[in-house]
């Protein structure tokens, strides 16, 4: 009895609770949030945290070579696991180097918690050494950010940051930590169940709207389901539900770049990727459909093409957890706010309750039309002769990985190789395809692959890259070597910033201004310099051997594969053009000169 009284008393009195340093509080909070890996780089303003890291073994720290690499690695880690990626960097340049990664995570809705050091509170605003206004700089590129000025707020803020980063539409959160707060003594608080009052994302969709949606979809004659990264963010169950939903409706399903893997590419109802470099059948179906169901997709300009010609005759239904995504670019007739998993579940229930059955005859006719578009075979390419077509390389990579018993993850950088990988590598599972979609960050893929491999040590992780993107963050090769991460870097080397070159060819009279790279390194020797294996192939006949060896080698590899420098990504919707105005191949010329409106678009 007496003991119980004492325990109660102990809980009531904060002074009786154990005092810890801010740095210890941070590490305890991270551990309680289930964090096992942190990507970071030390510096003066985070030394107390690094000292606390040294004295514990629950959390592993991965030492990157530049802070930008840390954020992309955490993105790869987060997207391949569904967990929050954690970054730890110092003040000033540490924080500013992280900005690109934070923006990337914001655009692609990746949950990241980034801890930044800050000069001590009494020096803030004094232009102190390595001081930057981190909360000011990161305000527009984070979902939310905090500057913690009292050590007793620390634990609560860290817990709240994890909740904000991972719930609703996920995104990056920065916690700026002045050095005196890291060293001060304070009290730890457990992660609370109660959420912040002003932040309560809506998970369940409006049931009446869901019923309306069923009615609309049931009566559709030419439906299409257009799904995006939101499905993947909602979790694997949402992808399963999407599959069922597509199955019962009989509709074709297309995916955005970020959505690849949310629906199996090998399924017959999949019509390929949509958008600027999507398939002919997908874009034509988007244009001609009478009902469009957007699931966790945001009508990005790379998807819609010319807005006033975007799917002109369709009734549009949009499901998204972010109300601001609905009616942002494209007017939708029925917007349902909610988590994709929750809404699809209710949608399936409502479908059954309604004894939903699609109009079979119309759907059949619709598929006949789609098959006709499919027969154009828009992804065809001609691999003849010695010069390696990049599409061929990606196809062969896909075939080789299919024979693997290991889980296979693919990351890319940004540019032509990214589009070829999206087009020619079939993704059947969510969370296995990692690319920088919204921000288009060259230099994303290598550190992202590193993050994936940290989370999945036994998986086969292939980072497909162009030689230019690869060089943007190749300092991380050193990290890969340090942690013995067997990442396979496959460089589709065409000696150009290929996508820039392609646009210059198509839109700027083939004036290749600054898009050719002189003095590229010898990537094989580069690999050797970092202590890893380097491979090279320059002929089509060598591709299979190169890929087989790359996969077989037990350790990190850089495979330098020389590909056709003149190859362009097709099909393509030129900027400012409509979906039904695609270029299918080099034979197609831009129909009319791209309008000025189109030229100003990126």
């Amino acid at each position, binding site marked *: 009895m007496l003991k119980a009284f004492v325990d109660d008393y102990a809980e009531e009195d904060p002074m009786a609770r154990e005092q810890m340093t801010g740095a210890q509080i941070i590490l305890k909070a991270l551990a309680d949030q289930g964090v096992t890996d942190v990507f970071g780089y030390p510096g003066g303003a985070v030394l107390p945290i690094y000292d606390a890291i040294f004295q514990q073994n629950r959390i592993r720290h991965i030492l990157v070579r530049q802070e930008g690499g840390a954020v992309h690695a955490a993105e790869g880690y987060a997207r391949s696991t569904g967990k929050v990626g954690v970054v730890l960097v110092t003040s000033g340049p540490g924080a500013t180097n992280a900005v690109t990664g934070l923006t990337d995570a914001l655009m692609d809705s990746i949950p990241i918690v980034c801890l930044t050091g800050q000069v001590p509170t009494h020096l803030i605003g004094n232009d102190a050494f390595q001081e930057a206004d981190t909360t000011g700089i990161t305000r527009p590129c984070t979902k*939310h950010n905090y*500057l913690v000025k009292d050590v007793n707020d620390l634990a609560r803020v860290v817990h709240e940051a994890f909740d904000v980063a991972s719930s609703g539409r996920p995104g990056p959160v920065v916690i700026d930590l002045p050095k005196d707060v890291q060293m001060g003594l304070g009290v730890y608080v457990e992660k609370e169940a109660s959420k912040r*009052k*002003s932040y309560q994302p809506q998970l369940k969709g409006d049931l009446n709207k869901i019923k309306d949606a069923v009615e609309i979809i049931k009566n559709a004659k030419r439906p299409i389901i257009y799904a995006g990264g939101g499905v993947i963010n909602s979790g694997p169950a949402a992808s399963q539900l999407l599959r069922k939903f597509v199955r019962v409706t009989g509709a074709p399903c297309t995916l955005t770049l970020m959505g690849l893997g949310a629906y199996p590419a090998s399924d017959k109802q999949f019509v390929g990727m949509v958008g600027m470099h999507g398939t002919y059948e997908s874009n034509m179906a988007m244009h001609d459909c009478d009902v469009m169901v957007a699931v966790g997709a945001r009508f990005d300009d790379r998807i819609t093409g010319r807005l006033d010609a975007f799917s002109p005759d369709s009734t549009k239904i949009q499901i998204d957890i*972010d109300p*601001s995504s609905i*009616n942002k670019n494209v007017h939708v007739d029925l917007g349902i706010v909610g988590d994709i998993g929750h809404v699809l579940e209710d949608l399936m229930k409502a479908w059954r309750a309604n004894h939903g059955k699609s109009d079979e005859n119309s759907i059949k006719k619709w598929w006949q039309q789609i098959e006709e578009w499919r027969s154009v075979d828009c992804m065809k390419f001609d691999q003849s002769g010695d010069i390696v077509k990049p599409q061929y390389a990606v196809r062969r990579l896909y075939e080789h990985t299919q024979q693997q018993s290991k889980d296979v993850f693919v990351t890319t950088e940004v540019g032509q190789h990214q589009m070829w990988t999206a087009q020619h590598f079939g993704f059947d599972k969510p969370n296995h395809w990692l690319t920088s979609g919204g921000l288009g960050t060259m230099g994303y893929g290598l550190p992202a692959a590193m993050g994936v491999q940290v989370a999945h040590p036994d998986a086969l992780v292939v980072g497909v890259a162009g030689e230019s993107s690869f060089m943007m963050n190749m300092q991380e090769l050193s990290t890969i070597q340090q942690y013995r991460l067997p990442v396979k870097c496959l460089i589709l080397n065409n000696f150009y910033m290929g996508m820039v070159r392609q646009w210059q060819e198509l839109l700027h009279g083939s004036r290749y201004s600054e898009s050719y790279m002189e003095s590229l390194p010898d990537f094989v020797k580069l690999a050797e310099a970092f202590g890893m294996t380097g491979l090279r192939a320059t002929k089509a006949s060598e591709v299979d051997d190169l890929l087989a060896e790359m996969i077989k080698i037990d350790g990190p590899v850089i495979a330098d594969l020389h590909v056709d420098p003149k190859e362009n990504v097709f099909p393509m919707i030129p900027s400012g053009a409509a979906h039904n105005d695609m270029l299918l191949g080099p034979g197609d010329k831009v129909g009319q000169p791209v309008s000025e409106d189109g030229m100003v678009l990126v």
Partner: protein
Amino acid sequence: MNPPEEPQRTHTIAVLVDNEPGVLARVIGLFSGRGYNIESLTVAETRRGRHLSRITVVTTGTRMVIEQIKAQLMRLIPVHSVSDLTLEGPHVERELALVKVRGTGDARVESLRICDIFRARAVDSTNESFVFEIVGNSSKIDAFVELMRPLGLTDVSRTGVVAILRGPESMESES
């Protein structure tokens, strides 16, 4: 490339936020970052005990833009509620202005007479100047300022619009 002739509307939006550092910067950054207009913006803590501030913002845009603005505001973590007073029903809008007029003789007498008509008050006076305080909706203040201009107007300081719904409903009760 949007349908060009969507009419522009002016809306008065009330936003209830946690009063914490940076919250105003978040709101203003949202408007400037996304290219929305701010015609006026006022902010002050209204519930000291609960650390709540109320922001009143007057903005213009097409219907889709206004809807976007509200959805984007609602996305900010410290924002509790967003109400579009222009849509939600009759509301009272008020602005306060301090207007300095310098002059002597007839002009001085005339300025006092107009002050009377507008139910403004002289809150400071010297032999050659007045400071008037005027409260009303923005167009009333515009009219007052225009009338004062030929009478020696030198300075105007305006608060921007504050607004509240008529009737018993409250936007602060639940949050």
